[in-house]
């Protein structure tokens, strides 16, 4: 078919005004430098869910640190005379069965939960990240050994193991025994995640390039691999913080967590069980405070995950 019969397919060219080339390969020299963390921050700061959870976390931490700022009532002062009394001036949530002020107990209960959550997470991240990083980076028999050890601790359910050990510690239960127990049985998850992240980073070209420069293996692991494997560890750690708070509450609920001398949400919830029928508010406040705390950490984890997700960032 001759070209002439196709009027729409003549040789056409656009005006010569199209911006060309040189600028394709130029840098915007005015913009501030943007590291990955900077990028992640940029995408975090526009998300309401981040600000909501950040505010809640901050609030809970402050409450845990200085509960006196929020109430002047002694949580351990209980007067049976005011058992199940409704809310009144200075006692916005009313009283529980023993006649303790529910508001004060809810405020003071934060400390146990937050301390256990944060300390356990630190223990777990240190243990898990070290084991996972070594297993993932050095591989071979070393990986087999560490992975089997991880499997052993993974195979025993966290709460079950904690109950068995806490029963042993019956005489000296405190925040630190709970942290040690949860930490010792809680690290395998972080270890697995770290191992996977390290394995996916260690074959990247920039690691090979660093090796070719003469950077040693251990330095490579610390300086290049770990910073790039940090994102999933941070996300998992944030979410686990919430999960550990739940675990502590569960132990206290079962009566083998923190001793009754320490005010804790889990123990208060357990006590409220019997009164649920007539006095739902006794259950509602500690349970609500606990749920809100855990929720804020999980939401934070979600928000950070989205911000650090390389797939979401690229393009």
């Amino acid at each position, binding site marked *: *078919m001759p*070209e002439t*019969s*196709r009027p*729409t*397919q*003549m*040789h*056409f*060219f*656009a005006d*010569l005004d*199209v*911006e*060309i*080339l040189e600028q*394709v*390969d*130029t*840098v915007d*020299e005015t*913009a501030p*430098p*943007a*590291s*990955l963390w*900077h*990028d992640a921050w940029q*995408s975090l700061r*526009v998300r309401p869910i981040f600000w909501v959870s950040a505010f809640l976390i901050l609030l809970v931490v402050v409450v845990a640190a200085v509960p006196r700022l929020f109430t002047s009532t002694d949580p351990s002062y209980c007067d049976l005379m005011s058992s199940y009394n409704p809310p009144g001036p200075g006692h916005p949530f009313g009283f529980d069965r023993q006649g303790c002020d529910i508001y004060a107990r809810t405020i003071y209960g934060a400390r146990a939960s937050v301390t256990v959550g944060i300390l356990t997470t630190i223990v777990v991240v240190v243990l898990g990240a070290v084991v996972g990083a070594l297993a993932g980076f050095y591989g071979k028999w070393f990986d087999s050994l560490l992975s089997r050890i991880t499997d052993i601790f993974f195979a025993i359910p966290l709460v079950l193991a904690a109950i068995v050990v806490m029963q042993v510690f019956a005489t000296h239960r405190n925040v630190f025994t709970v942290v040690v127990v949860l930490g010792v049985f809680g690290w395998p998850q972080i270890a697995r995640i770290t191992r996977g992240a390290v394995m996916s980073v260690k074959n*990247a*070209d*920039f690691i*090979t*390039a*660093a*090796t*070719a*420069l*003469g*950077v040693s293996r251990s330095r490579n692991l610390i300086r*290049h691999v770990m*910073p*790039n494997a940090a994102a999933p560890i941070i996300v998992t750690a944030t979410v686990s913080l919430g999960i550990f708070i739940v675990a502590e509450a569960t132990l206290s609920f079962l009566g083998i967590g923190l001793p009754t001398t320490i005010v804790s949400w889990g123990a208060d919830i357990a006590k409220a069980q019997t009164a649920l029928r007539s006095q739902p508010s006794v259950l509602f406040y500690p349970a609500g405070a606990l749920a809100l705390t855990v929720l804020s950490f999980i939401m934070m984890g979600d928000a950070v995950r989205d911000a650090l997700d390389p797939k979401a*960032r690229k393009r």
Partner: protein
Amino acid sequence: MTETTTTNTATEPLLAIRDLEVSFTAAGGVVQAVRGADLTIYPGQTVAIVGESGSGKSTLAHAIISLLPGTGRVTGGSIVFNGVEVTRASASEIVAMRGKQIGLVPQDPMSNLNPVWKIGFQVKEALRANGIDASRATRSTLTSAMLHDELGVDVAPDDDDLYLGRKAKAALLAALRTAITAAQGAEAADAVVDRASSALRVGATTRSEVLTILTAAGLPNAGATVASHVKGADLTDRVAGLLSEAGLPDAERRAKQYPHEFSGGMRQRALIAIGLAARPQLLIADEPTSALDVTVQRQILDHLNGLTQELGTAVLFITHDLGLAAERAEHLVVMYRGKVVESGPALEILKAPKHPYTQRLVASAPSLASRRIQSAKAAGVVATDLLAPTAGEGPSGTADHVLSVANLTKVFRLRGARPGSHTDFTAVDDVSFEVQRGTTLALVGESGSGKSTVANIILNLIDPTEGKVYFDGTDMSTLGPKDLFAFRRRVQPIFQNPYGSLDPMYSIFRTIEEPLRTHRIGNKASREKRVRELLDMVALPQTTMRRYPNELSGGQRQRIAVARALALSPEVLVCDEAVSALDVLVQAQILTLLNDLQAELGLSYLFITHDLAVVRQIADRVCVMQTGKVVEYATTDEVFDHPQRDYTRELLEAIPGSKLDVFGNASA
């Protein structure tokens, strides 16, 4: 058959796109991906869209079958296909159009087949979804129309168009065997049956063709026998037929396999079978072969070309390679940043590009450049400005080999399924070559040729099983850890993927400074001075050093990688596919940079690539590898002018544009 749509006359476009605008809504606002594009395709015509990444070429193609990803929307203009306005068509109209009228062969064969379903199932789906009668060959509307016009014949369903089924094939072959054995003996029968068996393709050979083949094979009373057996194919037969039409050998067995059991080329053939399954009038081929080796690419495109011509299918071919586009299409559309900057007959554009962008593209495309050098040489023109500047002049006899490799062999031990069992895989097999100081040696080969393994051995990242690497005459295997550390300064790598070779957590300053710091060179101030110097050397502004890799384009990152490699003033750079991932124009810029640096600093390059076209522009000597072995080792001119081995010739022919005769009489 209700397949009586508008019969196109050849002057009426099959597809007409006018003023098309496509935008994406992103966090930062609306991004226009296509800005007022025009495109026309006539029935049976092949049109190519050429553009770099981000030019909007794929977006344009996806808009045609309304497959825009995510937030993509057509915001203006029109797409008229066969008289139907696609932008206003209902969802069900579009579903009806997909597959049946417009087929798609997507870009990446690795990700475009569902890994959990068998190949045959995925092809069968395309037949089922479009209600295709698998039993007989359907003629495309174009062929029917032409037959109607030219011969005045109305095309009625004809039993001669019935496909051969697998049971019929077995029965016919048995009949043939009996007949031939009776007439000529068992031995002759084996040969005849084998030949007939490979000629008869289940689900693809029609009854009339079967008759021809079997008559030729010597089957007595072939007409009646064939008519009684060939009753049409079922879906499974037709799937095998489609796959074998797409050039997949042993299609019946292959249809029962999963995608991961296929090589890239085979997957692409399966995708072509899917795209053409419902005999569409238009096939959109979106970079169908850019992920494949050049020789496979060539085979597949040749095959696709033949198939679409036979079926009268129009093709919209999308590619980044101008040479490839010009070779495969009669009409070119050049896109840049969402706009069509030039369109017209392919040869006209190659010979006389009007738009400055097209002009640069024509000047930079490696395939065209290497052709141009060849043509210039053939015409007796001394095209020095086109060739790599050679620092180490002439064969002066004083062989100064900065790097030499002798009898290098690397065997990888692959663990088998059983404990303790393993298979040995020889990735590099007895490879020897030398790199003369100040020159470039290109190591060329397709995937699996072992070229990257050689690079890793030279970089001392893995140990060879056998053989030696000599650097400046020193046997590398004798070096202790301390000497090895010092050696690292003298040989540096540049990798293929500019997105993976820079640590995203390091600023550009830290990235370039790292080698200096690692080797304890200078103090903080002198190191910073050196970093600035290096940035100047690779033609990036010094302010870049405060930035992070994710802020830079692919070309800029590759410049950073070059700067880092140069930080320790090495003597040899190992460039492992260093420009393969870059867009054509950026690729040309990096190649120029490498050439300039070589002239300036007297560097020696080991340039590892799959792309012979690039080799012509940069290398002094070429070493061609195939499955771990060196098949040819000579100067670049010798390899290009007088290739000694079939494999090298095949590689050379696979450079796109080999069929073009553009530069023979054109002034370069």
